[in-house]
């Protein structure tokens, strides 16, 4: 029983991070109908920012989260300005392939500049600390990442659903032409949304070096899982992505422990297929 709860906790905590990575992808997809294939690489860039700040200036990841977020925000906005802008209103595949090229570019550029070495940030505030509840173990860095995830997703949800900016975003997502007629600068909305999507994953990348090694390949698997979460949650639905992230984390942990570790990703991808076969537009899709 205790093991089961421990496994669930582990799954829930990794699910929170998946949710945060997915939230960024989700909002971009929801507003622009673009799958950003370079999303995992955004995460990697965020981790490098946090790592270098920690390594060179001894800034703790908890603080450099903000810098990572800001940096990846700019990266996202730049991606939109330089690439995505030209692919809007064209078949979805075009943007996907362009971001695939971007992913390849970013991954190898980081390898070229920072070498393929694995980098671990030692002596962080949270690194390696755990928190005991009875015999259950709560790892503090992952817990912090989970809280960050909750806060960020909450803020994002509030931003989209409770502010004038959010209404403008929703209007743009529904019908760009109509939104433009209403006087909304949709171009600016797109830039900001790509930036905000980047910032979410930048936050995740910012905090992760306190428990995960940084290297150029680190983002690939996270990116893939984020796709699955977003599609499972439903088109552009932030609560959907959040729920799907948690679900993926839990299923991964349960399958990994109770079936076999090699089956954990099979279970995750199988779960996605099962969900979309039952609800072709995802859990919260319509």
């Amino acid at each position, binding site marked *: 029983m205790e093991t089961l709860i421990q496994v669930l906790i582990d799954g829930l905590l990794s699910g929170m991070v998946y949710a945060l990575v997915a939230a960024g992808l989700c909002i971009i997809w929801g507003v622009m109908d673009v799958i950003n294939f370079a999303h995992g690489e955004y995460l990697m860039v965020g981790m490098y920012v946090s790592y270098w700040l920690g390594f060179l200036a001894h800034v703790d990841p908890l603080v450099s989260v903000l810098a990572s977020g800001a940096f990846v925000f700019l990266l996202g906005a730049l991606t939109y300005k330089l690439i995505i802008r030209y692919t809007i209103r064209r078949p979805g595949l075009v943007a996907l392939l362009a971001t695939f090229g971007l992913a390849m570019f970013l991954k190898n550029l980081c390898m070229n500049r920072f*070498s393929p070495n694995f980098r*671990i940030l030692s002596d962080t505030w949270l690194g390696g600390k755990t928190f005991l509840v009875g015999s259950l*173990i709560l790892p503090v860095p992952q817990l912090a990442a989970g809280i960050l995830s909750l806060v960020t997703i909450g803020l994002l949800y509030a931003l989209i659903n409770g502010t004038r900016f959010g209404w403008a975003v929703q209007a743009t997502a529904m019908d760009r032409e109509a939104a433009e007629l209403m006087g909304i600068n949709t171009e600016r909305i797109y830039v900001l949304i790509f930036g905000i999507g980047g910032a979410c994953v930048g936050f995740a990348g910012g905090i992760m070096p306190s428990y995960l090694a940084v290297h150029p390949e680190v983002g690939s698997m996270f990116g893939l899982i984020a796709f699955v979460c977003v599609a499972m949650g439903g088109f552009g639905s932030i609560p959907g992505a959040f729920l799907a992230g948690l679900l993926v984390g839990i299923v991964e942990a349960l399958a*990994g*422990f109770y079936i076999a*570790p090699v089956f954990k990703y099979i279970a995750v991808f199988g779960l996605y297929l099962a969900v979309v076969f039952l609800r072709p537009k995802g859990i919260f899709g319509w």
Partner: protein
Amino acid sequence: MSRQVSRLNRWIVCLAVLALLLGFGPRVGSALAAEKVIKIGTIFPLTGPVATAGQRCQAAVQTAVEIINGKHPDIKVPLAKQEGILKGYKIVLVHADSQGKPDVGKAEAERLLNQEGVWALIGSYNSAVSKPASFVAERMKRIFMCGSSSSAALTQRDMKYFFRLAPTDATESVDFVEVLKWANKKNKANIKTLGVIYENSEFGKHAAEEAKKAAAAGGFKVVTDVPFTPGATNLNSEVQTLKKANPDAVFGAVLGADYSLWVRTMKQANFLPRIVINYCSGYQDPVIAKQLGGDANYFMGSSGYSPQFASLMPEVAAVEKIFKAKTGGVPFDGNSIQEAVAMLVLAQAIEKAGSLDTEKVVNALNANTWDSPLSLGGKVKFAKGGQNILAKSIVTQLQDGQYKRIFPEKMADAKIVFPMKPWDKR
């Protein structure tokens, strides 16, 4: 209209530049053909998930070539004092990137042999790449020197032109089981059960199979067998599975970033077997050991080299200086040094054979025992199939950030810390 034209022109310019680059690029290498050079090709995973190891291996071969080509009277390694080999021949390396993919490695082997006209190949770190790449060399009757691929299957193929320096995972597994027996006798350890954790790739899977074979032969019971996907986002369920089975000893074949994740996850789960022994993997990477700090201590692993072996291998230091200049201060590790040995032994064989006739060099390689100050034990000798039967490794343990020699006892410089110190008492 004019914008259209300029855009079109830009395209044409781009294409022309590209064509120029592609058309004339590969021919640059052949300018050297007129001099007395021996071209040797290297194939390593310079990009992709194991690029770190691949780039270090490449640097090691470069180091060896620098020693062979130049005059280094202060380095006590064969061929260091003279300039070049065969009375004035210099070695020129042609590098290729396998990306860690077998098909790419094979294509690059063909390109190097046919297109670049290299005389022999060195590579390829990944066992899965070494297999098809050496197959190409064998068919073309070219020598393939393999430094660090550890799959025992490589030298069970009865190849004539294939030579491998590193010990295989089969001999390593037998060594590891010996360590367990030794600990049982010496420390009254009462180790009975064994767990195996490995990345689910050619390397890990093969190591695990050999481990299970050796464990069965040594009378140990394998209670859990945990393969995982390399590049995983977390290793929680893997560690929980280990924890549940709670084996006395664990053998690990966990590479790179996964190794650090594994160690940290075990710490978080507050789980530690009494003894952990690693195949050539993340444990041997001096950078990872340093970055993990105290958490890396008391883990064990086999190693053909580590800077702390200096007293056994005094000649390495001077060579390592050249290597460090290439890697930004990272010393040799058990894998990369084998690639340097591969290059040096090949050059020695060419010198001994006195010609560039491949058959003669192969005969020389087979017939002689080679002096190799960079190898543990100092000698290299190949058996049929190409395995270096004098390949040795020492089982080390990380103590206070230092790789201490533990086993075999006559080479040891420290006592084993057994059982491993629990996480909360460090």
